[in-house]
C-alpha cells in the first residue's frame, strides 16, 4: 500500500463539528481513485492533510514510512519529491516564466544533463498537449492551458523517481478548467500514469468522467466515507441521491452507463 490513512479526523478551529471524522482509507499502486462528494465535504482538505499542510488527528503512512518522517531532513524531502507529486487546483504564478521554464522547475536543479532535461521536458509537454505553448509566457495562458502546463511539470517531477520506485500523484480537480477533449485526455493520461507503478488520487466533480476513468470511487459526505467501490457499484441513483441530494437517471450506453 502506497498510502494508508487510519482514523483521520480534521477539525477547523472554531468549527462546530469536525470536517472529517475517523476516516480510514488505503490507496494502492496502479489504481486511479476518484474522490467525490458535494462541495464542502472535505475532499480538498483530505488532500491537504495527505500533503502535510493541514493539522489532523490520526495517522498517515506514506510510501512505507510515517508521514512526518519524510519532512525531517532535506534528503528525505527531496527523496519524497521524486515519488510524490501534486497538481493544485489553481495556479498563482505571477512571474513571467515561459511554459518550458515552468516544466523545467519540476526537474529541479538535479543531476540530469541538459540534453536529458530537454528530452523529458518535450516528452511531458507533448503528453499534456502543451508543447506548442513552450515559448509562451505562463501568466498569459488561459486557466485550462495553465493547468496542463502544470500537469506536465508534475509528470516531469515524478520522472525523477528511480525506475523501481512506486509513486503517488495527487490531482485536485484536474478537469475543472478544461474543455471536453482535454478533460478526457488528462484523465486518460492519469490512467496511463497509474500503470507506471503509481497510485493516482483525483478529486473530481463529474461522476461520469470519474466512472469512466477511475478504478475506484470514494464518496465523502457529512464527514464520513459514504461509499467506496468500483464505478459500477457506486453509480446508483439511490446512493447518489443520498450523497448529493439529487435524483438522477442511469442511462445504459454500449459498454458503460452514464448518470444524467
Amino acid at each position, binding site marked *: 500500500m502506497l498510502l494508508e490513512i487510519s482514523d483521520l479526523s480534521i477539525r477547523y478551529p472554531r468549527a462546530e463539528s469536525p470536517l472529517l471524522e475517523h476516516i480510514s482509507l488505503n490507496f494502492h499502486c496502479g489504481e486511479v481513485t476518484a474522490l467525490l462528494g458535494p462541495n464542502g465535504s472535505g475532499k480538498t482538505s483530505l488532500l491537504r492533510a495527505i*500533503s502535510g*499542510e493541514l493539522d489532523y488527528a490520526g495517522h498517515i503512512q506514506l510510501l512505507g514510512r510515517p508521514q512526518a518522517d519524510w519532512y525531517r531532513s532535506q534528503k528525505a*524531502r527531496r527523496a519524497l519529491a521524486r515519488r510524490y*507529486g501534486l497538481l493544485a487546483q489553481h*495556479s498563482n*504564478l505571477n512571474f*513571467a*516564466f515561459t511554459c518550458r521554464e515552468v516544466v523545467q*522547475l519540476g526537474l529541479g536543479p538535479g543531476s540530469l544533463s541538459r540534453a536529458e532535461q530537454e528530452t523529458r521536458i518535450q516528452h511531458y509537454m507533448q503528453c499534456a498537449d502543451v508543447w506548442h505553448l513552450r*515559448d509562451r509566457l505562463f501568466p498569459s495562458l488561459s486557466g485550462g492551458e495553465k493547468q496542463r502546463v502544470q500537469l506536465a511539470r508534475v509528470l516531469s517531477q515524478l520522472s525523477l523517481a528511480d525506475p523501481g520506485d512506486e509513486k503517488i500523484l495527487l490531482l485536485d480537480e484536474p478537469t475543472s478548467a478544461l474543455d471536453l477533449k482535454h478533460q478526457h485526455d488528462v484523465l486518460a493520461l492519469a490512467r496511463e500514469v497509474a500503470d507506471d507503478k503509481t497510485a493516482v488520487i483525483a478529486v473530481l466533480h463529474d461522476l461520469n468522467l470519474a466512472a469512466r476513468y477511475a478504478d475506484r470511487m470514494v464518496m465523502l459526505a457529512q464527514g464520513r466515507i459514504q461509499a467506496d467501490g468500483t464505478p459500477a457499484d457506486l453509480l446508483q441513483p439511490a446512493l447518489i441521491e443520498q450523497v448529493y441530494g439529487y435524483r438522477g437517471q442511469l442511462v445504459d450506453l454500449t459498454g458503460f452507463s452514464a448518470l444524467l
Partner: protein
Amino acid sequence: MEFRLSDKSLLPVLTALLLLGSGLSLAVGAMHITWQDVVAGLLHWSWPGALDLDVPDQYALVLGEIRLPRLLLGLIVGGTLGMCGAVLQGMFRNPLAEPGIIGVSSGAAVGAGTVLVFGSVLAGTLGAFDTFGSWAGTLFEQVQWFLLPVFASAGAILATWLVYVLGDRGRSVVMMLLAGIAVSALAGAVLGMFAYVATDTALRDMTMWQLGSLAGASWTSVLVTGCIFIASSVLLWLRAGDLNALLLGESEARHLGVDVHGLKRQIIVLNGIAVGAVVSVSGIIGFVGLVVPHIVRLLRGPDHRFLIPYSALLGGLLLTVADTIARSVFAPAELPVGILTAIIGAPFFLFLLWQQRRQIV
C-alpha cells in the same frame, strides 16, 4: 514569443556600464577631476611617492578618502537593495514588494535610531559624572559602528516578519501593502518620538536617514556593509532554486522538496541583516529594490539564479549614477539621493499598481 537577452550580451554590457559609471562618479563633483588625474590620483593615494606622478595632493585625498569610499558604498548599498528587492518579491510571490515600500527599511531606521538617540543620551548623562562616565562615552563611540547595523538589522527583521504575517503570508497583495503602510507609520511615529529626546547631532543623522544619502561614507562603513553584502548575497543565491520553486506556490514548493518554512525564515533573517546594515549607514533609499528587479526580469527573465546577481549589479550601477547626479546638480550643495530615487521610483510603483489592478482587487 518571449524576448530575452543571453548572459553573453548582458554581462559585458552591464560590466562596461558599471565601469563607466564608476569612473564618472570619481571624476564628477564639487572639484572636477580629469580622467587622467583620476587614475594618477588614485595611484598616488595607494602608493604615495612610489611613482613619480605629477598630481596635486588634494586630488589624491579627495579621491582616496572621499570619492572612492562613497563609490564603493553606493555599489554596496545599491547592490544590496536590488538583491533584497528581488528576493522579497520572490518570497511574497508579488512584484510590488520592496524594502522601502513594505516598511523593512523603516524598521531598520528605528533600530539604528534607538542606538543613536539612546546611545548619545546615555553617553551624555554618563559623561557629566566622572572619569568612568567619559570612559564609557568613549567606549560607546568606539562600538557604535558595530551596534548600529546590529540594531538596524534587528529592526528590519522584525518589520519583515510583521508584514509577512499580517500580510497573510504572501497570499494577499492588499494586506501586504496595508501592513507595510502600518509598519512604516508606526516606525515614523517612533522616529518622531526619538526626535524629541535626540541631541542635535543625533537629530541631523536621523533626518539624513529618512531622506537617504551616501554622504556618511567612510572606509569603516564600506568594510562593514561590504562584508555583510558579500556573505548575504552568496547565502541568498544558494537558495535561488528553492525560491524559483516557491514562485509556483507554497504547497507546490513543498511538493518539490523545498523546506518552505526554513527557506522563508532564512530569507527574512538574511534580508533583514543586509537591509539593516545598509540602512544604518545610508538611511532609507527607496524604490531601488522595486525598479531594478523589474528591469532584470524584463531583460533576463524571472529565474532567481540570474535575477539575484544581475539585480545586485544593476542596483549598484543605478545608485552610483543617481548619487553622481545628486551630488552634481546643485553642486557644491548636494541632494539626498533618496529624494532622487523616489522621484524616479514612485511613478514607476504607481505604474505597476495600475498594471496589476485586476489581480489586486
